[in-house]
């Protein structure tokens, strides 16, 4: 038995798992219209490969991975592209995003799928394939898997952890997947282990899932694998990557760093399952298991094609019941309110909870913070949330950073236990977004300043060069004139020289700093490109932060 290392705090929210575990995973029905966002992962959105009017087959790439942190996107069924346009997506911001809209033809014809012999493959080629097959972390973080499957220096990854903790209440998609498809998960883990040269493989599961534990143990035995199924106590957020790593290895992922820095790599069980299917059948990631639960007629897990509108998915679960008050995407601890039910299921959506007033009452009015420290006792990152709250509310963002704001994984434990019902995490999200916005502003200003300085410097240099040329010419004229009679000659020489110096001086003085606005189109283009690059880098950095935050 592995010695477990207990992390600080945590919470025991009501589990509500039984609602959706009574039925097996069902295939969600084919729907007439699929809306497939090109950004279903952390990083740069995929570039669209199709236009309105194109016909596509199931599994055909419709978006190509762009840049390093990205992954491809594929058609969930056969049909006709009716539009590539902005559509509402399931995102906390409620903003629209570029989507490929496909009208299904009902035939569901697939591209020619070929199993891939991954064992013989050159590692970087294999990783590129995995990117092109659209694989991303399915635990909610949707970080492109091929990046995490790069072992770096040999022997860096000692422990591969499969995350089956599923600590969020209500969600049971990983639970059911482990119960029903344990062998396929383990086959995916074998690929991961081989790619990472990982010494050991540990599957972490919370002890509230005895069926899943038994199924995984049986599969490990039958397949003759030396993997360990580690049962961890049920305590939210044991499924957070950092918390599970610590639970199982006693190693703390460095602040703002990655698990791999302490020799650990963590993948969700669903990701392993997807990887197995991608390579064994050459089938890109076009579906995932989603829990539909809460105030619906028959809560259940579905294998859902990516792009299925959420309203259609809710209908598949028997539809919402009388008195539904909205939907949560994800779990109740870290999820967000869905703003538009037409938004599609993406690789990031693991659960849809239909709310009702009884189980999800409106939050009580917040009272004053009494510094009772309950929040600090519950914080798995060992922060002092009330101090952060204090400074975030006062908009003293420097102090929030000093109190390690960016080590907050937004798990929600603090808000959950606060007796004054303060929505602490909202304040932390707000403070983070403010700080990011300010950093962006500052960078933009810096870049403008640098551009301006360069521009001034270059104009000056040109003027100076011109002046020097003139002076040289004057000297040459003087030399030419040397053959002339002496007296008149001396006077003339002097006059020419004087004039040249005068001109040079004038030219120099004529150089005043110009406005940066007068850039040539080409310059303008370069500047824009540079800005876009920076923005991408920035988005990438932010998103990496996010990946760490998903239990």
């Amino acid at each position, binding site marked *: 038995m592995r010695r477990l290392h207990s*992390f*600080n705090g945590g919470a025991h*929210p*009501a589990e509500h798992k039984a609602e959706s575990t009574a039925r097996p995973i069902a295939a969600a029905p084919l729907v007439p219209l699929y809306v497939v966002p090109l950004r279903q992962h952390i990083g740069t959105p995929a570039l669209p490969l199709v236009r309105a009017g194109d016909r596509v087959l199931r599994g055909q790439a419709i978006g190509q991975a762009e840049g390093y942190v990205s992954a491809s996107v594929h058609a969930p069924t056969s049909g006709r592209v009716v539009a590539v346009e902005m559509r509402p997506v399931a995102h*906390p911001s409620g903003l629209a995003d570029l989507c490929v809209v496909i009208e299904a033809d009902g035939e569901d014809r697939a591209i020619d799928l070929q199993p891939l012999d991954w064992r013989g493959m050159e590692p970087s080629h294999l990783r590129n394939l995995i990117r092109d097959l659209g694989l991303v972390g399915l635990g909610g973080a949707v970080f492109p898997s091929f990046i995490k499957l790069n072992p770096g220096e040999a022997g860096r990854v000692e422990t591969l952890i499969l995350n089956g903790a599923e600590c969020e*209440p*209500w969600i049971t998609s990983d639970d059911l997947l482990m119960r029903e498809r344990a062998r396929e998960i383990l086959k995916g883990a074998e690929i991961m282990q081989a790619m990472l040269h990982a010494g050991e493989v540990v599957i972490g599961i919370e002890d509230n899932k005895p069926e899943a534990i038994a199924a995984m143990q049986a599969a490990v035995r039958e397949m003759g694998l030396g993997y360990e199924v580690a049962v961890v106590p049920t305590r939210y957020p044991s499924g957070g990557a*950092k918390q599970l790593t610590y639970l199982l290895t006693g190693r*703390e*992922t*460095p*602040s*703002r*760093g990655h698990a791999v820095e302490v020799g650990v790599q963590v993948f969700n069980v669903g990701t392993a399952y997807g990887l197995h299917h991608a390579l064994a059948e050459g089938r890109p990631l076009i579906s995932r298991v989603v829990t539909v639960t809460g105030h619906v007629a028959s809560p259940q897990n579905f294998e859902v094609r990516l792009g299925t509108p959420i309203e259609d998915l809710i209908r598949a679960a028997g539809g919402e019941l009388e008195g539904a008050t909205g939907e*949560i995407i*994800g779990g*109740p*601890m*870290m*999820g*967000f*309110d869905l703003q538009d039910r037409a938004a599609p299921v993406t690789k990031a959506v693991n659960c849809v909870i239909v*709310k009702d007033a009884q*189980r*999800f009452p409106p*939050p*009580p*009015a917040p*009272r*004053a913070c*009494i*510094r*009772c*420290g309950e929040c*600090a006792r519950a914080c*798995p*990152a*060992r*922060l*002092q949330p*009330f*101090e952060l709250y204090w400074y975030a509310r006062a908009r003293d963002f*420097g*102090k929030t950073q*000093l*109190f*390690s704001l960016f*080590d907050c994984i*937004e798990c*929600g434990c603090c*808000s*959950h*236990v606060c*007796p*004054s*019902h303060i*929505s602490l*995490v*909202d304040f932390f*999200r707000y403070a983070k977004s403010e700080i990011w916005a300010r950093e962006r502003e500052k960078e933009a200003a810096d870049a403008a300043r640098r551009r301006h300085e360069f521009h001034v410097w270059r104009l000056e240099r040109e003027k100076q060069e011109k002046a020097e040329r003139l002076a040289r010419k004057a000297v040459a004229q003087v030399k030419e004139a040397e053959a002339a009679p002496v007296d008149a000659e001396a006077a003339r020489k002097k006059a020419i020289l004087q004039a040249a110096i005068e001109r040079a001086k004038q030219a120099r003085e004529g150089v005043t700093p110009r406005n940066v606005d007068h850039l040539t189109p080409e310059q303008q283009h370069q500047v824009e490109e540079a800005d876009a690059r920076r923005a991408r880098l920035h988005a990438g950095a932010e998103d990496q932060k996010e990946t760490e935050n998903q239990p």
Partner: protein
Amino acid sequence: MTGAPFSLGPRNSTPRVMLKVLAALVPGIVAHYWFFGPGIVVSLLLTSLAAVGFEAFVLLMRNQPVRLHLTDGSALVTAWLLALSLPTLAPWWLYVAGSFFAIVVAKHLYGGLGQNVFNPAMVGYAALIVSFPLYMTQWPAPLELAVHAPGWADAFDLVFAGQGALSPDAYTSATPLDSLKTQILAGRTVEAVLGQPIYGLLGGVGGEWVALAFLAGGAALLAMRLTTWHIPLAFLAAVALSAGALHLIDPARHAGPLFHLMTGGVMLGAFFIATDPVTASTTPLGKLVYAGGAGLLTVVIRTWGGFPDGVAFAVLLMNMCVPFIDDYTQPRVFGKTARLRRRAP
């Protein structure tokens, strides 16, 4: 907009926390009533009414939602702690003035619940002992030792109609702490003094039972997880250790640890006053430092200070140090290497 978490489950609320604290004070109040008579009920009523009245008034003045804040129960907790720290049977305006200092000055002038630096009840106590020292030293004697044991009628009379009817000598006596101090100054030894009847078994007739009842209430607080062990334990340990050390050095002039634990405001202070979350240190290590300091200062003030008891001033002094203590005792954040971190200038 409020985002996740959505599921908040059955949990504590601030009013419920305050109610439980009040409930944990009840054993001490009952003991007080039993050994010292009905005066405590009158003073509790008075401070409660005054504190809630002042609270409502200030909330109105500050344009705050009166109902929401009044129902948090914090004013009542302050009122009860104040009443339990003051002598009973004092004139009514003493309780009203104490409540004024506690609620208006110490709490709301600093920004209201959660923002006050000093423990409101202790500010009320300190203001009174500085302004009206005479009334603050007239403590009713335990019923069994009093010349005249005041009943309900006497209690209301004394508080509201003044002291004409009954001479203070008939119902008051010096507290054990007070009389020990004066007698030692007069040259007697601790041993000789503690033999006198007022000192009871552990520290003082009646008072020792009240202290034990507060200890029981404090244990309930711990059991209900309304406070952690850090502050009460550090406070009591510091009192016991420092008193014990002094006693070892000079047993004739310094009473032992048990006497100090069982007299005055130590038990009330350890479990109910020093633990006030708003004004106490918040980090685990900081709590030990803060409460240890308060316990030590209590004994120091009792031994060398000008006041009979040191709990109030010790707590107030340590309240002052809390921001500093907290800064230097921040827990090590998960994934970071340094434990102690200074706040940037």
